[in-house]
């Protein structure tokens, strides 16, 4: 899944693009992350944002909820990558809300600790985060998906007559797939970006769960 095998290759790639020197690679991304902002949405809707706590059967999840300040939008559930809930994912959620969606970005590791869950954000060495990722599995994905989609459906800013979307990154890819499997009648679209472990030869392979109901990927 997350590219712990490729750290050296990633370093070379960043170097080749002139982003960093070898010496900088370990410590560059806090500064660079602040400099690289997402492009603003054209005709952006003004949005309302809040840190929220969501009860699940396994505890309380600290999450970020952002939605158009007026009216309703289709609900969207965002599953971050292994670096978890952090400023970059808040930016992405906000960006999507400015396009008219009511967006929940979750801390997938709430059972273990509150966000931020990666000590150095996206520059945290992956091996340090593997134990966190290993606390999650198909059962927790399904439990959480139901809790989060259910929570979204109770918000006045979420359009009840429109299907919801879900998108996941890296280890969040399988979580997005399983969200559709957990709530097949409520989820209408799934996005997985650099998803890891979507296809396995095990019976809990996320792909095995998919071919049901009507959805777009």
């Amino acid at each position, binding site marked *: 899944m997350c590219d712990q*095998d490729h750290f050296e290759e*990633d370093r070379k790639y960043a170097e080749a693009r002139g982003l960093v020197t070898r010496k900088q690679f370990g410590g*560059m991304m806090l500064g660079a992350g602040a400099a690289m902002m997402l492009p603003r949405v054209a005709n952006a809707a003004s949005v309302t944002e809040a840190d929220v706590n969501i009860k699940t059967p396994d505890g309380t999840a600290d999450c970020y909820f952002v939605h158009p300040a007026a009216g309703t939008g*289709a609900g969207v559930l965002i599953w971050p990558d292994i670096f978890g809930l952090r400023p970059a994912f808040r930016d992405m959620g906000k960006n999507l809300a400015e396009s008219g969606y009511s967006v929940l970005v979750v801390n997938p590791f709430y059972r273990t600790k509150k966000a931020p869950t990666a000590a150095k954000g996206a520059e945290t060495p992956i091996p340090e985060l593997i134990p966190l990722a290993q606390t999650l599995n198909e059962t927790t994905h399904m439990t959480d998906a139901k809790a989060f989609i259910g929570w979204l459906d109770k918000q006045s800013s979420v359009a009840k007559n429109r299907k919801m979307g879900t998108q996941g990154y*890296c280890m969040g890819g399988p979580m997005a797939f399983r969200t559709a499997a957990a709530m097949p009648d409520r989820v209408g679209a799934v996005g997985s*970006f650099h998803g*890891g472990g979507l*296809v396995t030869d095990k019976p809990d392979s996320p792909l095995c769960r998919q071919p049901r109901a009507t959805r777009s*990927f």
Partner: protein
Amino acid sequence: MRAPNDKTVLKETFAKANLPAEIEVYPAMHGWCPHDTTVYNMEQSQRAWSRLLVLYGKALA
């Protein structure tokens, strides 16, 4: 871990299930979407984001 066969399995499975799916391998390193990663690729990330907006625009209308 590279998974060069996954795109084929994904395409075949979605086709068999008659579900619409856009499966694409972007020319970027694993982790290229979030803008705070070391392998962030602005051009490809923005392209993926625009495809996401198209998908949501259709499927969540």
